[in-house]
């Protein structure tokens, strides 16, 4: 996967020195294990800092809305789908963009690796592509990356970018996989069980809004939770308010969420809020046969009306 680092640097330098773009969005090496930092390079020299490995889970399309000038962006499958959503929703113009497509080899879930270490602290983590070597004060251990992927990556069916100006590697094989095994389990619960399950799921929430802010689909100038004239919802961690936040956020990204997993990756308290968004993704897929951000030349089903739209609720 590190071969992408070199290719991103090369492309970024070329695009910047030819003045084809004003800036390039990618990642640079993080300061702690399993983290890289989203980075904007404006000069060919800065482009030397770009890296790519299994720690690039943050969706870079999040930085695009309201950007001016011409921008190149490194985009894995889910980022590219979020870019399509931005284009469909007029958040950025296609002619402003130069997409450096990255056939994605999935992102690593550091929490899963940390769990295996029984509290031992990771000082260094080296992504070797197929494996990750972690070391600490008195240990070194190698993990098969395939066993420690972010859950959204493990069930991803669009690893290859759906939109790009340049593809930085050979396309990877797409998976044929059941994406909704866990969702069906919840669907089969009694309503009281569901309520308990969801209450437990969001109990640790501190309302920091990292999930919302890491989400490329969340770009409203004023989010409903920040409306103050009048105020829509309470700001405490009262369970009703926290529930309202999570439910509404999920509904707001229905048919737009590309399951990039940035929300879960960003959560400081480990909430699996994709259990909400994935259910809505499943609904949209079953009702309209639609996957967010895959098709570029058709209005998304939830922002248009068609006479043959399914209406099962009219029974």
């Amino acid at each position, binding site marked *: 996967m590190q071969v992408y680092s070199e290719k991103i640097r090369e492309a970024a330098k070329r695009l910047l020195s030819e003045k084809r773009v004003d800036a390039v969005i990618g990642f640079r090496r993080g*300061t702690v294990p399993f983290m890289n930092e989203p*980075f904007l390079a404006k000069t060919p020299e800065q482009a030397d800092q770009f890296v790519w490995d299994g720690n690039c889970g943050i969706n870079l399309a999040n930085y695009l809305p309201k950007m001016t000038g011409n921008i190149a962006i490194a985009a894995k499958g889910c980022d590219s789908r979020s870019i399509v959503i931005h284009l469909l929703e007029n958040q950025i113009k296609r002619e402003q963009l130069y997409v450096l497509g990255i056939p994605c080899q999935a992102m690593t879930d550091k*929490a899963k690796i940390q769990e295996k270490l029984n509290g031992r602290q990771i000082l260094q983590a080296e992504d070797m592509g197929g494996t990750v070597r972690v070391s600490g004060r008195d240990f070194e251990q190698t993990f098969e990356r395939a066993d420690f992927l972010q859950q959204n990556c493990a069930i991803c069916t669009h690893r290859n970018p759906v939109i790009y100006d340049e593809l930085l590697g050979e396309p990877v094989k797409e998976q044929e996989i059941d994406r909704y095994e866990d969702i069906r389990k919840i669907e089969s619960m009694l309503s009281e069980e569901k309520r308990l399950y969801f209450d437990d799921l969001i109990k*640790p929430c501190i309302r*920091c809004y*990292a999930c919302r802010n890491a989400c490329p689909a969340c770009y409203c100038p004023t989010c409903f939770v920040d409306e103050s004239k009048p105020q829509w919802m309470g700001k405490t961690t009262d369970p009703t308010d926290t529930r309202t936040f999570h439910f509404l956020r999920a509904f707001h990204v229905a048919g737009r969420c590309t399951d990039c997993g940035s929300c879960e990756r*960003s959560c*400081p308290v480990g909430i699996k809020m994709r259990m909400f968004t994935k259910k809505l993704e499943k609904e949209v897929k079953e009702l309209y046969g639609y996957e967010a951000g895959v098709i570029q030349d058709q209005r998304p089903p939830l922002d248009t009306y068609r006479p043959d739209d399914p209406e099962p609720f009219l029974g």
Partner: protein
Amino acid sequence: MSDIYIEKGNFIPGVIERLMGRYRVHGPVKNGRFHEFSLLKNAAEADLGFQNTRLSPKEIFHPQAERMFEFSLAKDDPQAGILKEADKDFSPRVVLGIRPCDAKAFQLDDANFITETIKDPWWARRREAATMIGLACDSPCPTCFCTSMGSGPYDTAGLDVLLVDTGDGYVAEVLSERGENTLLVTSGWSSVSSSVRASLADKKKAAERSIAGTFDPAAIAKREMLELYNSPIWEEVQFACINCGTCTFVCPTCWCFDIQEEVYEDKGERLRMWDSCMFPLFTLHGSGHNPRNQKTQRVRQRFMHKLKYYQDKYNSGPACVGCGRCVQACPVNIDIRQVGRQMASPDCACPA
């Protein structure tokens, strides 16, 4: 004050149970993937083998959502519209196992809540009600940098007792009269043996040595404020920031709050809630004007407040104790140690 020793088998559950009989005891409890400070329901819950809690224990003194006042809006109520203080619990409490960095943090917060002229009554009363029993750090996290911020893994600032884990037991360094009085209800202590006493200094040194040096806050204090404010570093620092409240909510020295009222039918409450300078709403004026409507301004504010304004205003060290929580929790890896390095060095346009 004195040093005393206790075997671990006598501390958990014995000492904790005795304390619980007399005090509300807040201690580190494992909850899911992370530890958190909780009001202990039983002594066995306390897990003193923790590294540090994901959130700081500031909730104990500065609840995330505090009911300040309540009021009635009922038309036939002669007291309608009059604020009455909501019930609060100021009963004596023990914060058990708090890390030295966090205890030091609350001392820094005192500068804001308890001044010569104005005193925040609820912060002050909770502080007065609390005995702080700290636990020295022998295996700090890779993200810890307390020693650069004027604290350390064995720092006694803001503590009434400091416990040191000696393997089989704990040495308690009793630091205040309050600490001494609190421990009076407990038993099972003995004097510290000479061999254990001899090991303490080495343990402390080893712990301090295991923490990497980072930036020098004194160098930031010396810099001209406007030069730093207008520095080109902010443009690069701010890019990755997504303006969530994670760094401020996990931080033990972020004390900012918002005050709001919630009304249900004819009853209402005035609440104060943690707020975050990362949120655009934080500085939004009633007029609609927002003096910090750009992300760059907000990101700069957070670092300038902690590392520059606080130092200038109180003529002290920074409003950061190096607990490293923001470094661990930031979803986009904005690292205060890197930002501090850049702020400390006038020539440093260095990449992180």
